[in-house]
C-alpha cells in the first residue's frame, strides 16, 4: 500500500487538480464523520442536539440485547441478500462475459438500466407486485397456487434488497470474468479437467477478488439500508439503518444514533479490510 501520495509542495502544485475533490471530501465526509464520532461520546439534549458532557454511556448501551439483536438481524438479512445475489449474479455475469463484444454492452446496459429511475419509486413498485391482490399472487393463482402473504415480511425485505443491489454484484463479477484469459480455462480442459472441475479449480479462484468486491458492494448498502425494510418490511423488520434513523428523527437521541452509526462503520471497516487483504493475496500481478 502506498503512503499518502500528496504532501507538502507536491500537494500545493497539484492543488488545481486535487483541490475541488479534496474540499468536497473534507466538507462532506471528514467533517460529518468527525461530528458523528464526537457526538457518540456526548449526552443527549432534551430536544435533540447534544449537551457537551463527555460520557461512554452510548457505547455501553450498544451491548443491550435489544440493540444487539437488531445488529444481528441486520447482519443476517444483509448476508442472506449477499449470498442470493452471488448465487444469481455469478451465472448472469458468466453468461454476459461469454457473449460477443457488442452483446456484452447491451447486456450491461440492461443490468444498470434500473439505476436510471428513482430508487424509491422502484421500491414502491415492489409493494404493488408483492401485495395481497398484486401481480405475484395473480401469477401464482394462474398456475393454481394459493395466495401468499409476502409483503411486510423478511422475505419481502430480502427480495427488495436483492433487487436493488444485484447489479452491484454482477458488475464486478463481470469485470473479473471478462479479464480472465480464456486460454487458462482451455489449458485446464487440456490437462484433463471437466467443465465443473475447471470452474472449481481455475475460474472461481481467479475471479475471487471480483466475488469479494461484489459481496462487499451488496452487503454494505444492504446492511445500512432503511428504505427497503421500512417500505417492504412494514416497520416490522427493523434493521440498523432504521434504528439509526429513528434515533435521530424520532427519539431525538443524537448521541446514541451516532454510537450506532459508529458500530455500523466498524463492522463495515472490518469487512473492507478483509476484502482488501484477500484481493491482495489473490492478485496475480
Amino acid at each position, binding site marked *: 500500500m502506498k503512503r499518502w501520495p500528496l504532501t507538502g509542495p507536491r500537494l500545493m502544485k497539484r492543488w488545481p487538480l486535487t483541490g475541488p475533490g479534496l474540499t468536497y471530501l473534507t466538507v462532506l465526509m471528514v467533517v460529518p464523520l468527525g461530528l458523528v464520532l464526537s457526538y457518540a461520546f456526548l449526552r443527549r439534549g432534551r430536544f435533540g442536539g447534544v449537551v457537551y458532557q463527555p460520557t461512554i454511556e452510548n457505547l455501553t448501551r450498544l451491548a443491550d440485547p435489544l440493540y444487539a439483536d437488531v445488529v444481528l438481524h441486520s447482519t443476517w438479512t444483509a448476508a442472506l441478500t449477499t449470498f442470493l445475489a452471488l448465487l444469481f449474479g455469478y451465472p448472469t455475469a458468466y453468461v454476459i462475459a461469454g457473449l460477443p463484444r457488442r452483446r456484452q454492452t447491451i447486456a450491461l446496459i440492461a443490468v444498470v438500466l434500473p439505476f436510471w429511475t428513482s430508487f424509491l419509486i422502484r421500491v414502491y413498485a415492489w409493494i404493488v407486485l408483492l401485495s395481497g391482490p398484486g401481480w405475484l399472487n395473480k401469477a401464482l393463482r394462474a398456475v393454481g397456487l394459493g395466495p401468499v402473504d409476502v409483503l411486510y415480511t423478511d422475505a419481502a425485505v430480502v427480495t427488495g434488497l436483492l433487487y436493488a443491489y444485484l447489479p452491484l454484484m454482477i458488475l464486478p463479477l463481470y469485470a473479473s470474468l471478462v479479464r480472465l484469459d480464456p486460454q487458462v480455462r*482451455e489449458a485446464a480442459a487440456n490437462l484433463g479437467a471437466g467443465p465443473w472441475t475447471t470452474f472449481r479449480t481455475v475460474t472461481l479462484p481467479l475471479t475471487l477478488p471480483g466475488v469479494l468486491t461484489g459481496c462487499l458492494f451488496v452487503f454494505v448498502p444492504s446492511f445500512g439500508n432503511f428504505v427497503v425494510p421500512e417500505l417492504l418490511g412494514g416497520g416490522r423488520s427493523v434493521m440498523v439503518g432504521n434504528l439509526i434513523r429513528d434515533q435521530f428523527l424520532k427519539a431525538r437521541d443524537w448521541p446514541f444514533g451516532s454510537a450506532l452509526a459508529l458500530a455500523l462503520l466498524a463492522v463495515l471497516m472490518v469487512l473492507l479490510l478483509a476484502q482488501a487483504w484477500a484481493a491482495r493475496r489473490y492478485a496475480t500481478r
Partner: protein
Amino acid sequence: MIEIKGVSHRFGRTRALDDVSLDIGEGEFSALLGPSGCGKTTLLRVLAGFETPDAGKVTLDGEDLLSVPPHRRPVNLMFQSFALFPHMSVERNVAYGLERERLPRREIRERVDAVLDTVGLTAYARRRPHELSGGQRQRVALARAIVKRPRLLLLDEPLSALDKQVRAEMQLELKRLQHEVGITFLVVTHDQEEAMSLADRIAVMNAGRIEQTDAPVTLYERPRTAFVAGFVGANNLFPGPDGITAVRPESIRICEGDGDGDPDAGGGRLTGTVVDVSFHGGTSHLAVRVPDLDRPVLVAVQGPSRVISGQQVSLSWPPDAAVHVPASTPVSPIEGEEP
C-alpha cells in the same frame, strides 16, 4: 498414429480449413508451417478438441478422436501464451494434470519432481508464474504438458515469445526432450526457421490447405507449389510459359560485365544492373535489376562482394539449380498421394 482426413472448417464466410489431410507417425517431430491466418492454429485447436470441424475425420490409432471431449484426449497442448494458472505455484501447475487423473499422491510427487528436474526448474517449484522469466514460464508450460505423457504433444509457436539467446537454448532442449521422452511432437509456427530447425517433417499450409508435406531439405530444394517455392527461404521466381522457375539466391553465380563468361552455365543466364549490396558477415546479398523482370534478382555470395552498386553483371546458374513449378498450383500433394 494420428490420421487427419479431409478436415474442413469455416468461421462465418472464412474457410479456415479446406479439406486438410495429414498423417503423423508415432514418435515423429512434425511442424505445421504457414503465414498467420492460414488455418494452422485452427487445425491445432481441432486436435486439442477446442474446435469441432464441419467435415472430416481425425483418428488416433484408428479410433475416432473428434467424439472425445477435450479433457479426455491423450493430447496435450503448450499454449503460445503459456496459459499458466497464475494462482498456483510452479509445482501445483505441473501437478494439475496428474491430479485430474486421480493418481496416488506419491506418484504425482515423483513425476512432478522428475519433470521439473528435466526442464531445470527444481529450484523454482514454489514460485508463482509471475515471479518467473519468460523462458522459465515457457518451461513450466512444457513441463505441465509432458508430465501427462500424452500420445501427442502440440506446441503453438513454442519459440516465438523468447528472445534470441533463450530461443537457441530452448530449441535444443525441445529436441533433446523429444528424443528422451519419445512423445510425438507437432509444432505449429509461422516461422520457417523454427520449423526447419525443430521438425523432421514439415507441412506447409496456405489459405486453409496443405500445400506440401516433406522433410525440411526437400521442401527447400524441391518445392512443389509456387507458394512453397516463395514461402520457404529466399527465392527467385521466374515466370515462364508453362509455370515458374525457382532459383535460390545462393545457386546463382555472378560475373562482372555482360560477357558470356561462364562455360558450364547450362541452366539460365541473365544480365542486369546491381542496385543494392548488403554485407551480412558470412555472406553478402545483392539485388540485381534485370530488364523485363518486375522484381530484382537476389544473389547471395560468400564473404564480401567484389561487385558494387551500379555495376553491370551477368548472372548464371547450373541446370540442376532451377526448380520448375507448374503454373496452376496443383491439388494438395497429400490428396494426390491418397489412393
